[in-house]
């Protein structure tokens, strides 16, 4: 594309709306500026433009409009409008800063002139392999009739729903109300995860909130831990604005020497623990054991953890099985041989002195005897390993060091999308049939599809045909069941319904896909429903410090696209279910607060001055609105890009105030209000690791994965951003120079990654899968370890990810994949893209 060398400025009367970024969990504040292309532009003096900026601006102004922050849209009035989406310099999260993803928010929205022109715009039905437009009336009728038939004939579990947890309470509340409530299916899944198993279940079992810290803790901490969390690339602005300025030593735990890891060692005198994939449990156990050996535990804190009597009150099965007092935990840790320094070094590949150094940075008390202030961040390197034991081990470390609920001291996830999950109904665990030692756990839905239980698969804002685990097997399963009977031959609604019901009754399956852009899943679907995206409906969600913001609507959805909530509400009402007659998003937001219909404003006004036990309560927003005679959305709009940190509370004047961090009062999530250790570790994790590890001698590699800074998730907008596609026109696979030399591979070569040993829960057999990627030769990975981008469309790394769920808590060890590698041949990529090292940090000291 031709790079722009000028951008029009928004005039002072441009429409301005507050937004949180459409991408990652950091949740930077943005403002959208919209003004007609036929009207006057702003001028470069401060009084002449909507940003109040005097151009040219200096460094860090937060007022420059980069070319990627600008686009042209068309509204339903038929007119064209300029749009600029600019980081908000007044927002406490980002102060005008942005990542490469957020900086190109504008490039991801629909433009009739841009590469986003290919949005899904009408409902479509597949007839003889081709998808053709139909009316919404027909689409709703088809959905209601087929879902109604499947439920009546086969029961709720005949439906599977795969949806998202990010884009707004106002959509997830109706989706869950419908599928988990009125339909009653235990076959639910989120994004790439083929079940509703929580990623941090062990942390909850310990009594800790997953998102309990405040961003400002990063500036107060004396040590920051980044465990399986690539903060520089994936948490750009959290790292830049809330961690880097304090320059605290960083403990980076990662099989790769990422920029974050290089920064830890070269820039801030921290340490990089470059462990063998999947050995996190051993490393965390060894650090804990060393802390105990040295007596560095926070003695006041551990003295207030659960006692035997406290534990006796608990009735949840996992707590009954694994929860422990501090003394029991100490005995447990000291009883595992793998946790001695020498054994841990042998298993993890991390030298003993680095383990000791990490323990010291994490836990050695200050000279005045006060505990060291440590902030533990972790992400998918931990959650997507051996989930339950790894997260349990990190939660134990948090308790051991008192890292919970205090300024500069806490534990938090550090990655992913913003949280927009509101349960319109709880997941019906009582209907699930998967078990661990007789205890019910959430269903692994891909397996339930393969076993024939599922008749209709409704995918909403996800792309599971590529990004579920063992995706190649799963895809073949679904496509096969869709082909059980011939598809409809006409676009007559009655014929389509009869045909689809025929497929359901003949051991086949229907695939409904609801999304914004065409992708592998929508292209394979029997029925396609076009959805409204970010900026096309107003909606709420919160960021990595539970900061709830309304992202407003500033444009019309393209064509006939509709918000997901509207689609669900139409189908539910057509089927005769009640409670779906919302007239707008504000009504759903109010419903999602969960207040009883006859709530007492006066009583709640008083009660909500205290912190709610529900860490993400927004009841106070609803009550404040009632007190001020406004809508809840009005209140959220006034809160702007700073929003409110949940749980929301009320001050004495009835105004909404936030809660910076959870557990600040020393109260934890258990019957006694005390936190408890979990005696989980390598004793159970080792067998899982042995089952997943590669056979190096037979030519297998570890294939792990992660995110590239410029790329967001399945690239649904990135595929249409020229800047991203120039940089990343192909998936890549990082290969150590030693391995590359042996295999005669250079950067840019096309590589085939194939496995016929994809582990699976079901039995001792294996699945087969493969993908291609371009070699990126770099010592960022050690010999024997390969790394690829997660969710690069069509070059899906999950084609080879295990068909395996953690037996206790059904989460896939996506990071622990094994593969063989063959060179396909050279490409022209070396001429087109940069293959320079991506891990060069400034050297200090």
């Amino acid at each position: 594309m031709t790079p722009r060398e000028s951008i029009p400025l928004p005039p002072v009367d441009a429409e301005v709306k507050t937004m949180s970024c459409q991408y990652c969990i950091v949740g930077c504040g943005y403002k959208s500026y919209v003004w007609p292309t036929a009207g006057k532009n702003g001028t470069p003096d401060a009084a002449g433009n909507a940003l109040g900026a005097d151009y040219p601006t200096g460094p860090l102004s937060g007022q420059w409009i980069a070319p990627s922050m600008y686009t042209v849209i068309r509204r339903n009035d038929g007119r064209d409008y300029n749009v600029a989406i600019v980081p908000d310099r007044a927002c406490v999260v980002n102060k005008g800063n942005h990542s490469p993803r957020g900086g190109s928010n504008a490039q991801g929205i629909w433009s009739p002139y841009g590469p986003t022109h290919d949005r899904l715009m009408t409902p479509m039905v597949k007839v003889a392999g081709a998808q053709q437009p139909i009316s919404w009336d027909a689409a709703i009728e088809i959905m209601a009739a087929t879902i109604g038939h499947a439920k009546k004939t086969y029961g709720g579990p005949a439906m599977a729903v795969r949806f998202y947890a990010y884009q707004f309470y106002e959509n997830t509340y109706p989706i869950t109300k419908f599928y988990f409530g009125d339909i009653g299916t235990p076959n639910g899944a989120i994004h790439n995860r083929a079940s509703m198993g929580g990623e941090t279940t062990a942390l909850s079992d310990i009594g800790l909130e997953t998102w309990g810290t405040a961003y400002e803790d990063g500036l107060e901490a004396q040590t920051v831990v980044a465990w399986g969390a690539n903060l520089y690339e994936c948490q750009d602005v959290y790292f830049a604005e809330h961690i880097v300025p304090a320059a605290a030593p960083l403990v980076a735990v990662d099989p790769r020497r990422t920029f974050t890891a290089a920064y830890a060692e070269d820039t801030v005198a921290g340490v990089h623990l470059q462990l063998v994939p999947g050995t996190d449990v051993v490393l965390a156990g060894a650090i804990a054991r060393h802390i105990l050996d040295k007596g560095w535990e926070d003695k006041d804190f551990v003295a207030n953890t659960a006692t035997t009597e406290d534990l006796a009150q608990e009735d949840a099965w996992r707590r009954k099985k694994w929860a422990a007092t501090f003394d029991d935990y100490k005995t447990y840790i000291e009883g595992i041989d793998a946790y001695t320094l020498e054994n841990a070094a042998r298993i993890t590949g991390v030298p003993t002195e680095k383990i000791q150094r990490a323990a010291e940075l994490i836990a050695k008390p200050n000279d005045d005897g006060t505990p060291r202030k440590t902030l533990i961040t972790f992400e998918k390197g931990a959650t997507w390993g051996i989930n339950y034991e790894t997260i349990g081990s990190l939660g134990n470390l948090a308790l051991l060091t008192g890292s919970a609920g205090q300024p500069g001291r806490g534990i938090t996830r550090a990655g992913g999308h913003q949280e927009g999950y509101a349960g319109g109904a709880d997941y019906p665990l009582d209907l699930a049939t998967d078990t661990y030692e007789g205890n019910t756990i959430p269903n692994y839905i891909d397996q339930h599809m393969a076993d024939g239980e599922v008749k209709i698969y409704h995918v909403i804002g996800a792309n599971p045909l590529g990004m579920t685990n063992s995706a190649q097997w799963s895809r073949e399963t679904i496509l096969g069941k869709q082909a059980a009977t011939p598809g409809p031959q006409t676009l007559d609604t009655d014929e389509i319904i009869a045909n689809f019901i025929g497929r359901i009754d003949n051991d086949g399956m229907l695939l409904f896909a609801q999304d914004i852009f065409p992708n592998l899943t929508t292209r394979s679907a029997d029925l396609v429903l076009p959805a409204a995206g970010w900026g096309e409906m107003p909606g709420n969600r919160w960021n990595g410090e539970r900061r709830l913001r309304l992202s407003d609507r500033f444009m019309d959805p393209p064509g006939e696209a509709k918000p997901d909530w509207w689609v669900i509400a139409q189908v539910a009402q057509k089927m005769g279910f009640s409670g779906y007659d919302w007239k707008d998003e504000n009504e759903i937001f109010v419903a999602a607060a969960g207040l009883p219909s006859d709530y007492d404003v006066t009583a709640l006004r008083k009660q909500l001055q205290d912190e709610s036990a529900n860490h993400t309560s927004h009841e106070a927003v609803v009550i404040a609105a009632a007190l001020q005679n406004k809508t809840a959305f009005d209140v959220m709009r006034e809160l702007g890009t700073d929003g409110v940190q949940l749980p929301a509370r009320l001050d004495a004047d009835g105004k909404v105030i936030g809660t910076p961090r959870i557990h600040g009062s020393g109260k934890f999530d258990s019957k006694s209000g005390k936190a408890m250790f979990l005696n989980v570790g390598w004793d159970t994790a080792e067998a899982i690791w042995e089952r997943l590890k590669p056979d190096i001698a037979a030519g297998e590699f570890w294939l792990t994965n992660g995110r590239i800074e410029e790329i967001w998730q399945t690239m649904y907008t990135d595929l249409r951003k020229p800047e991203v596609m120039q940089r990343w026109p192909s998936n890549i696979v990082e290969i150590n120079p030693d391995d590359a030399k042996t295999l005669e591979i250079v950067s840019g070569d096309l590589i085939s990654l194939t496995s016929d040993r994809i582990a699976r829960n079901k039995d001792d057999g294996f699945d087969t899968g493969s993908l291609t990627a371009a070699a990126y030769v770099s010592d960022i990975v050690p010999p024997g370890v390969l790394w690829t981008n997660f969710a690069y469309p069509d070059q899906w790394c999950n084609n080879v990810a295990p068909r395996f769920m953690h037996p206790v808590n059904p989460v896939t060890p996506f990071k622990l994949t094994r593969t063989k590698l063959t060179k396909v041949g050279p490409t022209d990529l070396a001429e087109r893209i940069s293959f320079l090292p991506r891990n060069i940090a400034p050297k200090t000291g």
Partner: protein
Amino acid sequence: MAELQTVDRRSFLKLSGLATGIVLSGGAVIVGTVGRRPFGVAAASQAAKVQLAYPDYPDVVVAKLADIKAGEPVFFDYPQTGQKNMLVMIEREAEEGIGPDSDIVAFSTACAHMGSPLDNVYNHEYGMLGPCPLHFSTFDLAKSGMNVMGKASDHLPQVALTLDDNGDIRATGMYGLIYGYPANLFSKQESGS
């Protein structure tokens, strides 16, 4: 105007099938009514369609080839005073590179992310600019200033260079928008239009 296609030189080179690194006397190509002499066969074949993208850019000598030493940056303002750029011989064949080895390039030194000066962070080992002192972004100077890694959502703006027969290196245009500016050719008096 309607039937004219506006291109920058980089796109023109690709459209007309010429390899990068060819020295174009006359700099940015112009056919028709505005500016300089047409060049070569390729220009003739495009004559009906192609118009110079940056006809208003100044054409100024910014260095002499004989003075350029590998890995030693030279600084100059372009296209206007206060818009600082770095010219450097990176000893790697570069997109838009000039000189005998197509390895002389020039880029804005205002980071394309938030404008930090990049004057002191040239890395000759990799022909790379960065890590930026503020947020550690790195830019590949052989690959038209694309992110190696970092925060910018656009390439680092590159100066279009031309090498004359007498060894003068001239700046003739700019690819990409310089940080802080709404337009590279900026006039404070410019009114909204």
